[in-house]
């Protein structure tokens, strides 16, 4: 871990819905206690766009559906000591992974894009084009969970994990205690 007295924390949302970050805000006033102990590096919370220096902990929401997700995830892996996959999308791909079900096609990606933008009876897409602005990152052949792309140290299950759960995990990680989440926090049925 880096020698700064405060731990550095970076967070990002890849192919997710920001629900996990919303859940992070659910720690409510405890965020004040949190910033006593950690410095936020890159995160949607402070809108810093690039990791500025090596971090102790990185939280990843969402899996990888495009090249930019991969790029960000790889950067997080390189620059964070401990990488945590937060929520179902990061762990298993989540809802976006439904497109992986198109697998018995000669060209699954094409079929997916046509279904999303051209063929489906429920869409309104007046120019009948698949979006292809050069600024758009290229989409991957399928959705990948984070651990398929880089090594992930911990996973926090949930869709989204509760604020309490994120709080528990974060404080444990910051204090270097082995995680010990009570069952009621990770039991969903």
């Amino acid at each position, binding site marked *: 871990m880096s020698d700064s007295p405060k731990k550095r924390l970076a967070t990002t949302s890849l192919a997710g819905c920001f629900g996990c970050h919303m859940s992070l805000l659910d720690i409510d006033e405890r965020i004040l206690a949190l910033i006593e102990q950690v410095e936020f590096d890159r995160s949607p919370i402070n809108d810093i766009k690039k990791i500025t220096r090596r971090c102790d902990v990185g939280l990843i929401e969402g899996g990888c559906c495009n090249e930019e997700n991969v790029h960000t995830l790889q950067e997080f892996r*390189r620059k964070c000591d401990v990488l945590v996959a937060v929520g179902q999308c990061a762990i298993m791909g989540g809802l976006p992974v439904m497109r992986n079900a198109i697998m018995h096609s000669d060209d699954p990606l094409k079929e997916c*894009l046509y279904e999303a933008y051209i063929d489906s009876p429920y869409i309104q897409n007046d120019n009948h084009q698949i979006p292809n602005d050069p600024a758009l990152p290229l*989409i991957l*052949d399928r959705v*990948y969970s984070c651990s398929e792309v880089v*090594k992930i140290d911990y996973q926090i299950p949930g869709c989204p994990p509760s604020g309490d759960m994120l709080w528990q995990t974060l404080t444990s990680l910051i204090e270097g205690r082995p995680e010990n989440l009570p069952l009621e926090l990770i039991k969903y049925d």
Partner: protein
Amino acid sequence: MTTDNQHDLITDICTRYGNDKGRMLDILTAVQERLRCIDETSMHTIADTIGCSRIEVEGVVTFYSFFSVERKGDITIRLCDDIVDRFAGMKEISMIFEEELGIKLGQTSDDGRFSIDHAACIGMCDQAPAALINDVVITSLTPESARDIAQKLKTGTPPQELLNSVGDGNNAHELIRAMVNNNIRRFGEVLFDDANTGKGLKQALHQSPQDIIEQVIESGLRGCGGAGFPTGRKWSMAANTPATERYVICNADEGEPGTFKDRVLLTERAELVIEGMTIAARAIASTQGIIYLRGEYAYLKPYLEACLQSQRDSNFLGKNIGNVDGFDFDIRIQLGAGAYICGEESSLISSCEGLRGEPKNRPPYPVEKGYLDCPTLVNNVETFACIARIIERGAQWFNSIGTDDSSGTKLISISGDCDRPGVYELPYGTTVHELLKLAGAEQAAAVQVGGPSGQMIDPTAYGRKICFEDLPTGGAIIVFGSHRNILEIVEYYLDFFISESCGYCTPCRVGNVFLKERIGKIRKGFAELMDLDYLRELSNTVIQTSRCGLGQTSPKPVISSMDNFPLVYSALLKEHPDGMRASFDIQKTLEESRHLAKRRSHIFDTSYDN
């Protein structure tokens, strides 16, 4: 065939089986044989005739690998895809058939004459590579014989006339006439001692059912099909469940890859098996028995039918058996249709009832509520043969053979990389080393004891004993030399379970696929240490959460190879200190996208010049 003809043919077949829905398997087998498929029209006709819905018929048709909705060739070639056959050169054989007949595996020729498919182990591992051409078994294929056979088939030679020779023993019997060999390498004192005598049954006629069961308990006999449940206990449970009818079923499904001892018993000691079933009938008061014969052994059916008939003629089957008033018992043969899971006793019962061969929830156990909801005794072929001897020669005699907890002898089928593959009757307690010596396989690098659902052991364990206290086996011993790839074997076995899973439970249906994917990743050199943890954890989940024995044992090849061949795994693992996954190839994942978007990646294409 015109629609009218097809309709008549099907209703005729249904009539032959009494328009009985319970005989669906027989009806479908007959329709498939005549029409080479069971299409929509046939399904409708069958449903209307036997009084059920079309979807019920379709459910059964699509369950069994020997039935097909699409038309198969008049001559259906099924190449045995067992690992032993693969190692014996099946790939080349398969290419020769494809080349000669001009179709690919899984296809039917346009003129409808031929189709080529894979079959799971057909029970001929000691004479691999082997194939089924319709019902005719062809063994010890070579590239030359394969080409010769394919050419003869093309010129119209019927499969039966392809045989240049017939096998040893009863394989030469006029009702069998198969090129299959028994390869009995050791005749033990129980099963292969002398020929069939009928002495056991004659004794049983004068004994009370309770006496018979007590002798079976005293003998210490345990089921020979794999699980080793004490036979006497099973019998007394079946006898003690109140019922007006009870059934005796002989499990001759023999689907575990590498097992072929029941085939040899049925060929050489069929009367002994029938005798054992009849004794069981007396012990539990049953009047109806079934021999569930795997579809791959259909070539033995005419012979077995004749054996049953001769037993009837000598008053050993039928009414008032042995002139004992009221002792009525008869046996029918139920032919399977290519499904390993039907060897599991509750699936086997479903299959006999004309249903999809899916396991049933237990309890109630078959001994309480089995075939047609009556108490049903399911025992292995070998178990019944032992019974006849136990009653003939006494429980004490039987109990004195073998070890403390495993009485008697065991028929063992040995195949793979050994000089003398075949069937060995040996007392329980024989060590793996002794076995390997007999079979000429002392150099073995790995031995799979008990087939894929057993365990893979390494040379340090060859001192272990074949018995329920140590290394249990239903009879399969598969030997692998040092030139074999352990992980290829593991991957193959997982493939086997994947294709044979009935699909009812998610852990079995999906878990085995994930296990296989992970083994594949290891083989490609993309795996890290944590992949081994994953394999172990997932294996345990599949074992603990599957409903029947298939899922409960399917991860065993993974676990036992990890335990006993750790170096094979660790040699292939690679850690990546930077935390990037070797298996993730960004270039590959973007290929399709670049093509569709007609542009390159400005992140990952380094030559991208904007």
